[in-house]
């Protein structure tokens, strides 16, 4: 595992350095925290967990990492191979002092909007151009090793959903179910997961972190499970019923299954993210549910997957990003249904030369668990 991790990290670093040279950049400063850690991890091969960090990457591939968490700095010294780690309570000023020494070079930052504003202040002696698009392109287009990691994460997501089906029982509280899933993932050696949950009926408008709400007979229970392997996330979305699904729930679910199928069928090289969203939404419109494809009821119709659980491109009808082989996405027509409540259904997919490969293997059904 450690060898494949460092190989993958080295490949990424080389790709970034090549892209920097092509763009005429001497140094790129990458920002990261545990929420948006993908840019930093791409260049520094370090998954930040606490505090925040900056990685200064040279066009020759050398990396310096500035971290303001003592726990993470200690971990980085063990986990980030070939990276020079600096522990500093004020990483902006520590990195700024370093940038002052190379201020005559061509410098850029990504994601620029997340940079500590002290670094972006025009009063500084250095100027940071915006390298966000450059890194975004690298994050979206994955090489074979990265795709393998996403594929393994999707397999773990499938297995975790089997555990989820076992964990949901009447009387259990939402957070107890999540405890079971997280423990299962840690036992499998999976260190990270993004997960939200919903349970209830027509009163439920979406998913959130777990609450103390107890599962009841007849509930729709929704979840997004998003485990990570070597920093690469893969997501699965499924809905279950506690007890026997009623006719309204079955009828509603059939729309989501049709929309997911339509969305996945639209994924191919050359298609736009908007085409996928439109394919999903057209199914809802056909069934008179067009209102529920709007931002009042749903956020996105899917999104990219990779080193961030909610990567670019967002699958929306106004996003014109062209899909290319090597991109990994989740297609999920998740939204509210007026007769059943909030329903989710989504699969991780890979854009291939010939079209699409579905990475999740869990059946697309409205599961039923014992009441």
């Amino acid at each position: 595992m450690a060898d494949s991790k460092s190989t993958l990290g080295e490949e990424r670093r080389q790709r970034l350095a090549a892209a920097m040279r092509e763009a005429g950049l001497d140094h790129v400063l990458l920002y990261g925290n545990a929420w948006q850690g993908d840019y930093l991890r791409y260049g520094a091969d370090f998954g930040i967990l606490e505090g925040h960090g900056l990685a200064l990457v040279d066009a020759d591939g050398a990396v310096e990492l500035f971290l303001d968490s003592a726990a993470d700095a200690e971990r980085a010294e063990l986990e980030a191979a070939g990276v020079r780690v600096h522990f500093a309570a004020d990483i902006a000023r520590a990195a700024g002092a370093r940038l002052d020494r190379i201020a005559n070079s061509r410098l850029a930052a990504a994601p620029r909007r997340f940079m500590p504003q002290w670094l972006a202040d025009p009063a500084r002696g250095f100027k940071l151009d915006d390298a966000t698009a450059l890194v975004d392109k690298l994050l979206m287009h994955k090489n074979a090793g990265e795709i393998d990691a996403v594929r393994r994460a999707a397999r773990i997501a499938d297995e975790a959903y089997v555990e989820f089906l076992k964990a949901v029982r009447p009387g259990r509280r939402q957070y107890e179910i999540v405890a079971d899933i997280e423990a299962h993932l840690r036992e499998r050696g999976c260190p990270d997961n993004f997960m939200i949950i919903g349970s209830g009926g027509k009163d439920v408008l979406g998913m959130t972190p777990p609450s103390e709400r107890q599962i009841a007979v007849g509930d729709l229970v929704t979840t997004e499970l998003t485990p990570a392997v070597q920093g690469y996330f893969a997501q699965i979305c499924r809905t279950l019923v506690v007890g026997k699904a009623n006719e309204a729930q079955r009828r509603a679910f059939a729309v989501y299954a049709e929309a997911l199928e339509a969305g996945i069928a639209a994924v191919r090289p050359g298609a736009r993210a908007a085409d996928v969203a439109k394919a999903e939404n057209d199914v809802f419109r056909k069934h008179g549910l067009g209102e529920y494809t709007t931002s009042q009821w749903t956020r996105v119709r899917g999104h990219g997957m990779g080193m961030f659980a909610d990567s670019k491109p967002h699958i929306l009808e106004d996003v014109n990003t062209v899909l290319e082989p090597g991109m990994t996405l989740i297609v999920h027509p998740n939204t509210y249904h007026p007769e059943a409540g909030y329903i989710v259904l989504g699969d991780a997919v890979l854009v291939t030369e010939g079209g699409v490969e579905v990475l999740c293997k869990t059946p697309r059904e409205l599961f039923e668990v014992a009441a």
Partner: protein
Amino acid sequence: MRRGLISRSPIELPDAVLEARLDRVRAAMRDARLDVLIVYTNNTRPAGVSWLAGFVPYWSEALLVVPRDSAPYLVAALTFRVKTWIERVSRLGDVLHHPRIGLKAGQQIASVQKSAAVGIADFDGLPAGVAADLREGGPDLTPSDATALFTKLRSKADPAEIALATRAGAIAHHALQAPERGPLNAMIAAAEREARLRGAEEVYLAAAPDLTRGPRFMRIEGEASAGKFFALRATVAYKGVWVRLVRAFYDPEIAQKAAAQFAQAVAQLPSDRGFAGFGSFVVEGCRVAQPLEPLLGSQFEAANPLSPGALVSVQATVTVDGESVPVGAPVLIGAPGEAASLLIDPLFD
């Protein structure tokens, strides 16, 4: 990301506690001639906002706007669909939703007072995009850095915060006690499950897998095995308060000596002289944004002073009979003239 229980308890965090904190903030704002205070939050920097409103974002970002003379409101990038959830887990006057939180906050503040004096906690660390949007939304606002003001307010833990930290420490204690000696992955899983079942908002488990090779902690990915001597560290969040606790699986006699040396050094805080001779040590506490910010330690060039009554986390590597043993626990700094004390004992086998 937060995956644990996020809920509000009117017993553990009554309205009166949050109101008392707001009263102190408003008094400091009057002294500093600030019309509005802004505190930024995301799931990695939740400390300031959770202290004032109980809100911890599981994802995304928000700004808490505290006008000097009216109720605080949240400007959140999370969508309208989670408004009821935010209101359920927080104490806020209102929640506004906008993808550009800086823009919306700037516009909202300026609509009330065009040239308001706006203090911003951790101004230098504010994301550049949010800062630019704030300027665009309120071009005539007068922003200033309110970090020192906010830090001073947070320096002494109030009784509610101490109670929550004690509860977090108890969760960490139970979590680290849960695993039987066995495969490392299974031990981590058992500890994580226990912490979450006891209501942890979040838990990070780290391991020093072989203390004969070094006392440093790492996150475990894939199959891992532990040596004869190893240690686990639980970092636990409970209702916005974070603690770290270490369990060392070591020769019991040596581990007990290490824990005693650690407690002896801790008692001398805020002076760090008790840590002389330790392999390393770090003291973390909450100043503004992050729940565990470094304050003092052996790797520091410049340390922040530890205030009387502060809640901190102390981690150290103690050398006993030539062996390096990691120890860590939450600590309450005493009033002037009083010794500091461990909030909960570190564990050892």
